[in-house]
């Protein structure tokens, strides 16, 4: 995908996201349909007439008591004068208690069984909606009274305010929202599975695994966040559920910045991850309120994520702009935890998918190029042997031997055959044992000795048996040495030496007595290019080659780091 295409997708996504956030902020799904109750009066204890509207509750308190008791709760709701209604009114609430609910003194519902002790109490569901009988749903003020007990809750009561409205809307709309959010969650799940497969089957890059886990955590988070609209569960479970949500949030908060760190190859990734984890634990210990700890954790997480993506953006790393936009989207979404944070994350996921697919494409391109390069080098190596300069000159020399000394001619043919044989064995390898390389060099020198009537030798010093080298690199350097040898002599020695120190391998090839003039080595021949390409293929950016004149002759030093 081209950069411009990616930019277009980014822009469209940003506009879409901004629109959604604004829409969700303006349009609370239940806003137009409900009337909230107002004025809370609370009294611990029990009384026969406490449900009646005309009872004086002016002495009552307006704070919810600690959970471990039986108490009453009263509130008022004003119904507008309505046109004729054919759909029932209802009241809905989420409270971590068992209760009875009275409408103007009439019992209209019961959730579990209220009791004076934990043994007497039967757990009610956390979220419930009750129908208000038509005869009671007249215009004007009404009183809602509730008799509650919450012996199995945590100290503080978890409570969603009672709201009154069209019963169908009250019960249906949250489920519709949950359906949409589950749809999104399903997408996260599929993406998580996909990247898990990629990680385990194809490409063991940690960023892929982290991304999969992040998607998985968000999937779980959404499932547990929105399933409450259609699953009835006893109220004590609400506290476990909140605990799980906080844990998942903390996990996502850890995974997001860590994923970005691995994605953009931040140094000291593991250390940073551990530091982040330590800070999270510290926050959890520091605040007694779990919500405050969660808030601190989320903000630290986003600060880190923003920092990492900004750094990547400054370094112009591929995918950094997508990541940055995604993190910002999440941050905006954070304003309203219920829905938009998940939408924000959805955008982060979309952006990340976009940049990952671009990267996967680039990687496969790079892989193909590497294969092609490898094939080209092989062809180049084989071609160097059938190039007329080598092959036809060799055959011409052979003719001269045939006429002069058939015995030598036969030896010549054998030597030549050996060189070709070795060449055939190694040409499609990326690395070969150094002994094989030396054998190739010697075979070549034997051929050249017979061709040019000069005694060529290769002496070796300190060679580590079994060390791997790219094929035909010393062979090529020796060939270069032969080509540039201008002196007429009877004998010429090449010396190959090897040293290894601190994970650094050094090969030195000396062409004894060889003097090369400046213009010669300034102009780089195909041979040198071949050697460099082979080294780069095997040891990307970890090698050096330095040709230089020494008193003993022309020396080429090849250094390979990090072995």
């Amino acid at each position, binding site marked *: 995908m081209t950069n411009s295409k990616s930019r277009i997708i980014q822009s469209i996504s940003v506009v879409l996201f901004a629109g959604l956030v604004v829409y969700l902020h303006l349009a609370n799904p239940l806003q137009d349909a409900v009337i909230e109750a107002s004025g809370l009066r609370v009294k611990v204890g029990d009384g026969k007439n406490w449900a009646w509207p005309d009872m004086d509750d002016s002495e009552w308190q307006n704070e919810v008591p600690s959970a471990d008791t039986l108490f009453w709760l009263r509130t008022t709701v004003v119904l507008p004068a309505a046109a004729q209604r054919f759909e029932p009114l209802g009241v809905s609430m989420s409270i971590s208690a068992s209760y009875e609910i009275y409408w103007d003194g009439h019992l209209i519902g019961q959730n579990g069984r209220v009791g004076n002790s934990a043994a007497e109490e039967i757990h009610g569901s956390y979220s419930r909606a009750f129908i208000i009988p038509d005869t009671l749903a007249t215009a004007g003020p009404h009183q809602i009274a509730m008799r509650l007990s919450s012996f199995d809750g945590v100290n503080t009561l978890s409570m969603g305010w009672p709201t009154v409205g069209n019963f169908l809307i009250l019960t249906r709309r949250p489920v519709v929202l949950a359906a949409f959010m589950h749809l999104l969650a399903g997408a996260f799940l599929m993406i998580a599975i996909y990247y898990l497969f990629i990680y385990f089957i194809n490409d063991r890059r940690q960023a892929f695994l982290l991304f999969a886990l992040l998607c998985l955590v968000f999937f779980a988070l959404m499932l547990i966040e929105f399933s409450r609209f259609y699953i009835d569960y006893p109220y004590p479970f609400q506290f476990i559920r909140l605990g799980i949500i906080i844990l998942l949030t903390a996990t996502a908060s850890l995974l997001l910045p860590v994923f970005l760190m691995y994605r953009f190859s931040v140094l000291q990734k593991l250390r940073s991850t551990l530091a982040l984890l330590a800070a999270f634990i510290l926050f959890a210990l520091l605040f007694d309120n779990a919500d405050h700890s969660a808030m601190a954790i989320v903000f630290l997480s986003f600060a880190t994520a923003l920092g990492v993506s900004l750094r990547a953006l400054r370094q112009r790393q591929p995918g950094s702009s997508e990541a940055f936009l995604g993190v910002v989207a999440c941050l905006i979404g954070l304003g309203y935890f219920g829905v938009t944070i998940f939408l924000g994350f959805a955008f982060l996921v979309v952006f990340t998918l976009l940049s990952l697919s671009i990267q996967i494409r680039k990687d496969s391109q790079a892989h193909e190029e590497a294969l092609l390069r490898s094939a080209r080098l092989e062809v180049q190596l084989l071609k160097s042997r059938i190039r007329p300069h080598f092959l036809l000159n060799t055959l*011409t020399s052979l*003719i*001269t031997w045939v006429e002069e000394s058939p015995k030598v001619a036969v030896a010549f043919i054998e030597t030549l055959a050996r060189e070709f044989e070795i060449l055939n064995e190694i040409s499609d390898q990326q690395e070969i044992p150094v002994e094989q390389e030396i054998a190739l060099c010697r075979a070549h020198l034997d051929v050249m000795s017979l*061709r040019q009537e000069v005694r060529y030798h290769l002496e070796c010093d300190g060679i580590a048996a079994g060390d791997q080298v790219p094929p035909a690199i010393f062979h090529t350097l020796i060939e270069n040495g032969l080509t*540039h040898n201008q002196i007429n002599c009877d004998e010429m020695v090449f010396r190959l030496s090897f040293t290894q120190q601190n994970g650094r391998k050094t090969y030195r090839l000396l062409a004894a007595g060889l003097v090369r003039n400046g213009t010669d080595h300034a102009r780089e021949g195909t041979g040198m290019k071949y050697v460099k390409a082979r080294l780069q293929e095997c040891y990307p950016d970890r090698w050096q080659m330095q040709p230089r004149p020494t008193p003993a002759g022309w020396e080429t030093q090849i250094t390979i780091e990090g072995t």
Partner: protein
Amino acid sequence: MRVLIVEDETRIAKYLEKLTREILSYQMSTVHVCQSLQAGLVCLEQHRIDLLLLDLNLRGEDGFEILKKLVARRFQTVIVSAYKDRAVEAFEHGVLDFVPKPFSRIRLEQAFERFRNNRARSEYPAKFVAVRLQNRVRLLKLEDVLYFQGARGYSEVHLRDGKTELHDKPLTELCKVLPPVFERIHKSFVVNMSEVRDILVSSGSKYELALKNGKQLPIGRTRYKEVRQRWL
């Protein structure tokens, strides 16, 4: 006959020398062998030679730059090279022959035959004629040449634009590499026949060739018949 062999491979150089001596055995001949181009160029300064046997791919340097200088000289050049794919290019520069490696004695004999036979023409005609200027060599396109005129063992090159240059080879040697459109009409003239307008016959069996630019060149009495036959 004086021959210079420039070949970097010792064995091949020796072999060439041996074959050359055998082939030319009945002729008085000297054979020089040089194993590098530099040594070859030095040798050319010191000795007059008639034929150069040259390995074109000479140790990394661009053979054609060298070749340009060599074909401008008086002697004939025969390339002995493994780079057969560059034979045409070599011929176009004006070499007498191109012997691809590996070669046989018969093939080499052919090359010498081409040199000895004055009526012989190279396998593939030249496109250029090289002339030595003060410090450099210029390749003139043969299609720009009107005619060559022999002068004291050299050849004057008369060009379409009226200019005249000097080429080192005598007309007889030059003819061996020229395309068939160049006809030797006279002991001292070789003419580009595509530039001819007419043949003029004057009284006293005086024959002349009229060129398109109005110039008139004499046709040798002995060659008139042949020229007439071939071109009219």
